C-alpha cells in the first residue's frame, strides 16, 4: 500500500501542551555540543533580554515530531516508517522558545506529491503558547520510498 494522496489538507487535533523544561534545554544543548550559557544559565539569558534560558533553534523539532507521530501512525495515511527519509526541515521562530513555555502543536498535511517511486509529504506544525500566540512554525518534507525499492 502506498501513501494515500487524500491526506493532503488534513489537520490533526492539537496535541496536549508540551512543557519546555530548563533541564531539557540544557540536555539538548549539550547533545549538540553547544556550550552557550544562554541555554543553561538563566542569568546569562536574562542579560540578553530573555525571561529564562532559551532553546537552541532546532529543539522545536522534538516537539514537532511528537505531533507528526499522529500522521505516521494514521492507518489511513499509509506511511511505512521504515521507508521514510528526512528530506527538508525549516523553522520560523516568531520568538525564541523559553524555559517554562507550554506549547501546543497543531499538525497540518500541506501537500502530497510524487516523483517516480518517491512520495513527498509536506507537513507543517504550528507551535503556539497557551494563549494561542504563535511561537514557532516547523515545516518538514518526508520522502517515502516506493514498495518496489528495497
Amino acid at each position, binding site marked *: 500500500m502506498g501513501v494515500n494522496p487524500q491526506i493532503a489538507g488534513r489537520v490533526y487535533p492539537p496535541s496536549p501542551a508540551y512543557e519546555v523544561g530548563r533541564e531539557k534545554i540544557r540536555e539538548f544543548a549539550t*547533545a*549538540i*555540543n*553547544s556550550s*552557550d550559557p544562554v541555554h543553561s544559565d538563566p542569568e546569562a539569558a536574562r542579560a540578553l533580554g530573555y525571561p529564562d534560558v*532559551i532553546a*537552541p533553534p532546532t529543539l522545536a523539532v522534538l516537539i514537532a515530531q511528537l505531533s507528526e507521530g499522529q500522521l505516521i501512525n494514521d492507518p489511513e495515511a499509509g506511511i511505512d516508517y521504515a521507508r521514510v527519509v528526512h528530506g527538508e*526541515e*525549516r523553522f520560523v521562530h516568531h520568538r525564541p522558545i523559553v524555559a517554562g513555555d507550554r506549547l501546543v502543536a497543531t499538525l497540518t498535511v500541506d501537500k502530497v506529491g510524487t516523483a517516480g517511486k518517491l512520495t513527498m509529504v509536506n507537513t507543517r506544525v504550528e507551535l503556539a503558547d497557551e494563549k494561542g500566540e504563535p511561537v514557532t512554525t516547523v*515545516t518538514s518534507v518526508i520522502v517515502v520510498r516506493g514498495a518496489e525499492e528495497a
Partner: protein
Amino acid sequence: MSPTFDTVAVGDELSPTSYQVRRRDLIRYAGASGDFNVIHWNERVAVSVGLPSVIAHGMFTMATAGRFVSDWVGDPGAIVEYGVRFTTMIPVPDDDEGATIEVSGRISAKDDTARTATVLLTAVSGGQKVLGKATAVVRLS
C-alpha cells in the same frame, strides 16, 4: 565582538569551522532528541538496509550548522528562520575520530526594514555537500 546590522555586508564570509561527529555524539543526540531510529546507532541494522555504516541524524547536522550561525551572531535567539535540505548522509565510523563536518557561510542578503541578514550555509563531509539550500535569517542589532 558580535556582528551588527551596519557592520555586516552582503558577500561577507564567515570563518569556516570543522566539527567532529562520533558515535557517542549520535547516541547522546538520540537520547536528547528522542530520535532512536536504529540506523543512527546500530551498525548491524544500518548495513543490513544497505547503508555503508551508522549514519548521523540529519537533524544533528542541521543543529551543528545552526550552532555555527549562533556562535557567529552571539545569540541563538537571533535566528528567526532556519531551513535546510538533507542531500547526502554522513557515515560515522566506529573509531575515535568519527566524521568531520566543515561548515562555512556567506551573507547573501540584508533586509533594511526587518534589520536581518541571510546567511547561506555550506556543510561538507567526506567531500560531499550534506545540506542543500541551507539558509538562516538572523536579526541584528
